[in-house]
């Protein structure tokens, strides 16, 4: 079954979820497919090895998904988090696609499971991958190999050879020139490129290079080489380079690949102070799952791009256990000394907060009535006095999951030059996510976007070489709304 021709029909550059979806779809359509993954096999899959679930539209309960999550509600959620910086037709296509893609995913070996304990709030909206993203990536690679996709690891691509908006060949780092009839770019954003991040975020009013203190939650391989190449080659782009999936994570996380476990979930149960021992935002504004994606940027704006989540013993056992132990102390001033901030200022901030806490009935599973009065910034829910030793501090830093700067595209996933789509060059995954996500984030939507554009790009790349996918057009017609 395996075809190894000197000139494949479809060249897929990348090795994560979107690239794999493209490769599988193109191969299903009958095209010969060569996939180039820049990482070695043990690091394959890009950021997809860290993902957890897929946000899915559904009009009625579906296996692991309870109740219903209709198109309109999904759209409204997306509209809210992006503040309207999105493309409605493309967003709706992604949403509708998410309602019908799971049988195909299962066919290629992906297993779904009910939501994880501690993540029940998304039981209705998100389908969880059994074993997480790496299990999904493994399944897709096995399936791709089984149906005859040729896969090469350790194969970073340096540049492309383009002619009049058409793909001709890819040049690898090792100097090989690989020609193909069509190409899909599924090789990620530029989040792992620290130099580019530094340049994009620039210097703040304190003279700090903000991005120097960022941590990258995902792969080290998304250097944005081809994104940069495409921008320089005159491809139409979309998105702001400082917009990204950016959350506050434990400052002790590794520079790359810290993944899900480095998140800190006790923010809403205590207070957060910066290096000056000042609070800077309402920790209890809403449920943490709805707020974690704004805290990365909030911390990025603080001096030293760092902050500490402070709790007392009452919070223990009420949040997902953290991967790193907190700094512990029996008094607040001792805690301040241990984390290296001014004890007097810290104790004063905490005293002011404690004095402002109003009596109420604490309930961390609801938007309760425990709030502060006369404090700026206020804490509007779960505001309980922090007075019960031991006290704990968790250091925070901005953690970048993926960047939104990418290729402008349309419902065909084609790259565009001079306001015209390319015949044979397509993009998927993080490279086009910015079309739907101008800013903000909501759990699992990255996989909805990656899977939709990955599959569409693969089908269209194969079609541009004369291979029609046997079943996808009906599915796509539904998703595209015509």
């Amino acid at each position, binding site marked *: 079954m395996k075809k190894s021709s000197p000139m494949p029909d479809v060249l897929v550059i990348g090795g994560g979820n979107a690239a794999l979806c493209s490769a599988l779809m193109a191969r299903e359509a009958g095209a010969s497919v060569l996939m180039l993954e820049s990482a070695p096999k043990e690091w394959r899959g890009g950021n997809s090895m860290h993902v957890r679930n897929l946000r899915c539209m559904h009009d009625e309960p579906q296996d692991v998904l309870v109740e219903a999550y209709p198109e309109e509600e999904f759209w409204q959620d997306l509209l809210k988090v992006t503040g309207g910086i999105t493309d409605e037709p493309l967003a709706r296509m992604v949403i509708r696609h998410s309602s019908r893609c799971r049988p195909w995913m299962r066919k290629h070996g992906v*297993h779904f499971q009910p939501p994880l304990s501690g*993540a029940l709030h998304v039981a209705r909206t998100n389908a969880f991958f059994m*074993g*997480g993203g790496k*299990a999904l990536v493994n399944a897709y690679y096995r399936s791709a190999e089984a149906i005859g996709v040729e896969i090469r690891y350790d194969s970073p691509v340096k540049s492309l050879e383009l002619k009049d908006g058409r793909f001709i060949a890819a040049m690898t780092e090792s100097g090989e020139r690989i020609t193909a009839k069509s190409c899909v770019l599924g090789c990620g954003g530029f989040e792992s490129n620290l130099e580019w991040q530094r340049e994009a975020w620039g210097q703040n009013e304190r003279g700090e290079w903000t991005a120097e203190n960022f941590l990258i939650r995902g792969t080290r391989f998304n250097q944005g080489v081809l994104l940069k190449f495409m921008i320089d080659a005159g491809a139409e782009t979309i998105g702001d380079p400082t917009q990204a999936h950016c959350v506050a994570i434990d400052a002790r996380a590794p520079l790359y690949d810290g993944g*899900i476990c480095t998140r800190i979930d006790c923010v809403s149960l205590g207070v957060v102070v910066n290096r000056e021992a000042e609070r800077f935002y309402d920790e209890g504004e809403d449920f943490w799952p709805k707020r974690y994606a704004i805290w990365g940027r909030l911390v990025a704006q603080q001096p030293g791009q760092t902050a500490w989540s402070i709790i007392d013993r009452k919070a223990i056992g009420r949040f997902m*256990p953290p*991967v790193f132990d907190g700094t*512990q102390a029996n008094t607040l001033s001792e805690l301040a000394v241990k984390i290296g901030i001014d004890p007097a200022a810290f104790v004063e901030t905490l005293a002011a907060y404690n004095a402002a806490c109003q009596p109420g009935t604490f309930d961390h599973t609801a938007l309760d009535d425990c709030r502060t009065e006369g404090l700026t910034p206020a804490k509007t829910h779960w505001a309980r006095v922090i007075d019960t030793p031991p006290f*704990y501090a968790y250091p925070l830093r901005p953690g970048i999951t993926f960047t939104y700067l990418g290729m402008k595209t349309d419902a065909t996933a084609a790259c565009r030059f001079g306001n015209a789509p390319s015949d044979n060059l397509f993009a998927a995954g993080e490279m086009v996510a910015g079309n739907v996500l101008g800013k903000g984030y909501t759990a699992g939507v990255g996989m909805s976007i990656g899977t939709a554009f990955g599959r569409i790009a693969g089908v269209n790349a194969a079609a541009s070489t004369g291979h029609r996918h046997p079943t996808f057009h009906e599915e796509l017609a539904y998703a595209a709304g015509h």
Partner: protein
Amino acid sequence: MPPVTDLEAPVAGGACDGGVNFAAAMTAGEAEVARIMQICNACRYCEGFCAVFPAMTRRLEFNAADTHYLANLCHNCGSCLYACQYAPPHEFMVNVPQALAKVRVRTYQDYAWPRAFGALYERAGLTVAFALSGGLALFMILAIAMNGRLIHEPLKGNFYAIFPHNFLAALFGIVFLFALVALGIGVLKFWREVSPTRGDHPADIAAAARARMPAVVEAVNDVARLRYLGGGHGEGCNEGDDAFTLWRRRFHHFTLYGFLLCFAATCVATLYHYLFNLHAPYAFSSAPVILGTLGGIGLIVGPIGLLWLSLKRDALRSDASQKAMDRGFIMLLLLVSITGFALLLLRDTSAMALWLAIHLGTVMALFLTLPYGKFAHGIFRSAALLKFNIEKRMPNRLGLGGE
């Protein structure tokens, strides 16, 4: 720490401190499990694979007893290793199956009775070799001492002409009873160490009492079906790589039911002998011979398959030092079944006494090593599954409230 029973009570250590008070009392293997479980507990992607991870989520910290419990819940299916974003070469070096395997064998050792005999696990290959050579020598010597020779005129398959029935029944009965007592004491110690009802909360004690019967039913079902060799999705375990296969479960089923059928053959024969006064040799069409033959086939197919899988298993997920224990037990089972068939085929010839001595010698070696070898895994894992099935029916007092 045990499952949290009262959140307002002081928590020894707490979720957020160094946990040093427990770590200090731990072995390196237990501390490694505790370290890994703290990472897993913050991730939880593998929750759907097996019982280990749901049991983990009921805890915030992991003391030595918790690591023993989790180690014996793990069936080493491998799913969580290939799915792990933190597995080597990631700097977190998370390898759940290997870390649990290392603690697991220590639990067999530490809970062995008499305690000193636990050291036999450290020389598992030698233990099997001694038991086997000792068993063979014993029955060769007995045969010669009682009959003067090993080769004789054909005796129409009458084993008792060589060794009297009551002598065999007494000898094997005593050894088997000892094995049962030794394993029973060991598993009881294990059971008492981690108890879901250890808290003083009356509601917990009542819930545990209510849970017991349905938990027993489910645990028996889990063991009989070898549920957790299915990998959560039913496609099986990993062996050489991230692909799933059901062969490990199938070969385990051959082995388990082969063993039980052979045991049933012995029980039926004992009933025939004492209750109905029907004495061996039994015809090929008799119940003991049919049960024994079916069981023997299972004990040939199963162990050969398990040996084959053990040879090609990914070294990353195994504890290399346990190969002697694993393969020693597999080889003993295989020898018992092969020599059993040889005896069945040659029982009408002049070599019957020789093969009877060989077969009884291997059976004796198996019985002697039951409490000090790989056989213990079935007992301890069943106990851990029962504990899990009770625990999961009890109220979870952790109120994590969503991440």
